[in-house]
């Protein structure tokens, strides 16, 4: 029992944070948004050069062979920077799914090199993200898994409030040439993909929450009203402290969910759901606190807070609505065993 990240895990997240600190500043985000392009190539190749595209792909297939717990802080960093590129969806969900379903597919190699990204649809999501810039689409249809060339699919853009999210609905002709896994084979893969999706969405929400508090703290230390920095008023202090408390008690849930994900039973699935709910709540509190602390500035386009507000809204129902996740926690609570001795238990231990 050791509830700490390893030095390697911390280091990899730090390297990414530093990279994004350089290449994903407010001005970078705004430039990308104005260009209308899907990604910043310099930033994206920096991420690919770290080997992160294949982070969760087994080493035998050319990836880094990392585990969810190794990737969770990376997803946090992506949230913290409001990263526009599909690092989390591509590396955290799609590539490991492709590697599992079709390890020999040549697209996997291309994706590991960063030459292409894979976009993934899932029954739990109403839309598919970043499909227009993807090299291939991983699509579920009647339980089967298909790998589809975007040119052979009809994509319809569904504009999200998040200026960096490129959502689409997709129509395509499923056939034996596109099918890469039968419904029976695909089911466990899709389940695992869903839990990775929800977990890393939760991790991004932690990053969003912390960045929102960070922005508010910085502003509250500078902005003066009635002769004092507004951060010296209890109303501001207490609201930000409360937001930070929410973050502090969402983080260990997200981290525990990452560590127990490979367990893939009801207990670990419920932990993922708990993580998504707790991180979503933390992000919601934090972005609203940040807007209030910024006053009218928080309602302006000029300040970055609204990027985080919008991303938090978008991720709130992405990879499972609150209703879905609360129901899954309910299933665990009402059918599983409760009490302090079961905090880290597996479902099978209690069967």
């Amino acid at each position, binding site marked *: 029992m050791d509830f700490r990240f390893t030095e390697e895990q911390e280091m990899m997240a730090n390297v990414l944070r530093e990279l994004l600190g350089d290449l994903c500043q407010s001005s970078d985000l705004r430039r990308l948004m104005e260009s209308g392009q899907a990604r910043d190539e310099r930033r994206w190749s920096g991420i690919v050069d770290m080997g992160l595209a294949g982070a969760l792909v087994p080493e035998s297939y050319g990836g880094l062979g990392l585990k969810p717990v190794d990737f969770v802080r990376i997803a946090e960093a992506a949230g913290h920077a409001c990263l526009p590129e599909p690092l989390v969806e591509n590396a955290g969900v799609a590539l490991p799914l492709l590697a599992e379903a079709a390890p020999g597919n040549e697209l996997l190699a291309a994706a590991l090199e960063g030459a292409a990204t894979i976009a993934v649809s899932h029954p739990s999501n109403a839309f598919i993200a970043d499909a227009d810039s993807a090299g291939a689409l991983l699509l579920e249809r009647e339980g089967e898994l298909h790998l589809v060339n975007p040119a052979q699919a009809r994509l319809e853009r569904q504009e999200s409030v998040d200026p960096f999210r490129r959502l689409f609905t997709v129509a395509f002709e499923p056939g034996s040439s596109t099918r890469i896994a039968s419904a029976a084979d695909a089911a466990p893969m899709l389940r695992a993909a869903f839990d990775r999706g929800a977990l890393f969405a939760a991790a991004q929400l932690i990053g969003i929450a912390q960045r929102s508090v960070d922005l508010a703290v910085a502003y509250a230390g500078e902005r003066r009203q*009635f002769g004092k920095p507004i951060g010296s008023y209890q109303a501001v202090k207490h609201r930000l402290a409360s937001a930070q408390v929410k973050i502090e008690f969402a983080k260990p849930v997200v981290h525990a969910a990452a560590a127990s994900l490979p367990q893939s039973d009801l207990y670990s699935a419920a932990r993922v759901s708990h993580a998504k709910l707790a991180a979503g709540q933390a992000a919601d509190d934090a972005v609203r606190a940040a*807007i*209030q602390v910024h006053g009218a500035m*928080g309602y302006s386009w*000029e300040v970055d807070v609204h990027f985080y507000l919008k991303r938090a*809204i978008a991720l709130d129902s992405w990879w499972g*609505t609150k*209703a879905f996740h609360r129901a899954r926690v309910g299933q665990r609570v009402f059918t599983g065993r409760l009490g302090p001795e079961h905090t880290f238990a597996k479902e099978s231990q209690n069967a």
Partner: protein
Amino acid sequence: MDLHYTDEQEAFRQEVRTWMEANVPSAPLPSFDLSREGFEAHRAWERTLSEGQWGMVTWPKRYGGRGLDLIQWLIFEEEYYRAQAPLRVNQNGIFLLGPTLMEYGTDEQKARFLTAMACGDEIWAQAWSEPQAGSDLAAVSSSATRDGDDYLLKGHKIWSSRAVYADWAFGLFRTDPQSERHKGLSLIFFPLDAPGVRVQPIPQIDGETGFAEIFLEDVRVPAFNRLGGEGEGWSICMATAGFERGLMLRSPARFQVAARKLVDLYKAHENEVEPCVQAAVLQSWMDAEAYALSVYATASRLEAGERIGAEASTNKIFWSEMDIAMHRSALSILGARAELLHSAPAAGDVGRWLDGYFFSLAGPIYAGSNEIQRNIIAERMLSLPRA
């Protein structure tokens, strides 16, 4: 206590309803904050209202009103929102400045400004805040220097609603350069097309531009444009803020109509949402009703000669927090579609809930932040000691 409308009030309601049904544009007007075209369409609506003598029913007839009481005003507002009539582009004028002018203006000022305001010929922006004077309004530093019969205005205003397209603005200026805080301020009007005025739109969170910065560089206005005495700006401004937060800024009908729409949205998606959402929807309806009842109670007291007190602050807190809660409930019903812009093909009935949510988040900030309102309630209503 008599909670029944008189026959006269019922007849008045019918009269408003009939007129609204005949005159409210069938299609929504384009936003008055996004284009000159939308702004002018709303100005045209103000003129239509004014022609029907509906510009501001509580005003005296000589200024284009009907001299009606606050209960009738509430009835008018109810029918106005029921008819889904356009937002009032001249809100700053008719709800904020107008009542203040009525109280503090000279006869000449009333004649000059009120009629033009009521008929939509002159649309007003407010110019309260400055970069260093937001919640702390007494920190304004824009100056008005007397020069013969004129003032020369200089300074930088911000968060001025409607200023992008409006005709006139009113704001606080320091007429005594030696003064500090709330002393030595005067309330002065200036035309937004005067030489030396530069208006810079502020893009807001949803990309719209309802606010603007105003840069003033030796803008010459006659001293006639000063409301009240020199140095009396603060107390007049506080009276205006009382109106703004108090009764007229957010009429209850707005929230009752929103609550009805929320109930409709809930009914359409009842089977998809968590059971808890129902309680939230009912709470929104109850809150909108409570707000309406409270405003009727206040209006009754005001009609009986009492003055508005800390209700101004309690109202501001209540409606702004209710507005956020209502929109959050709507977004939770919309689920995965909540993030879609209403222009997205799959948006379905997402409507304007997301825009409304963003606007609601500004509610606890503008018109005196809710932190300031809570200070006011604590200190003036509860008599807790000042810090």
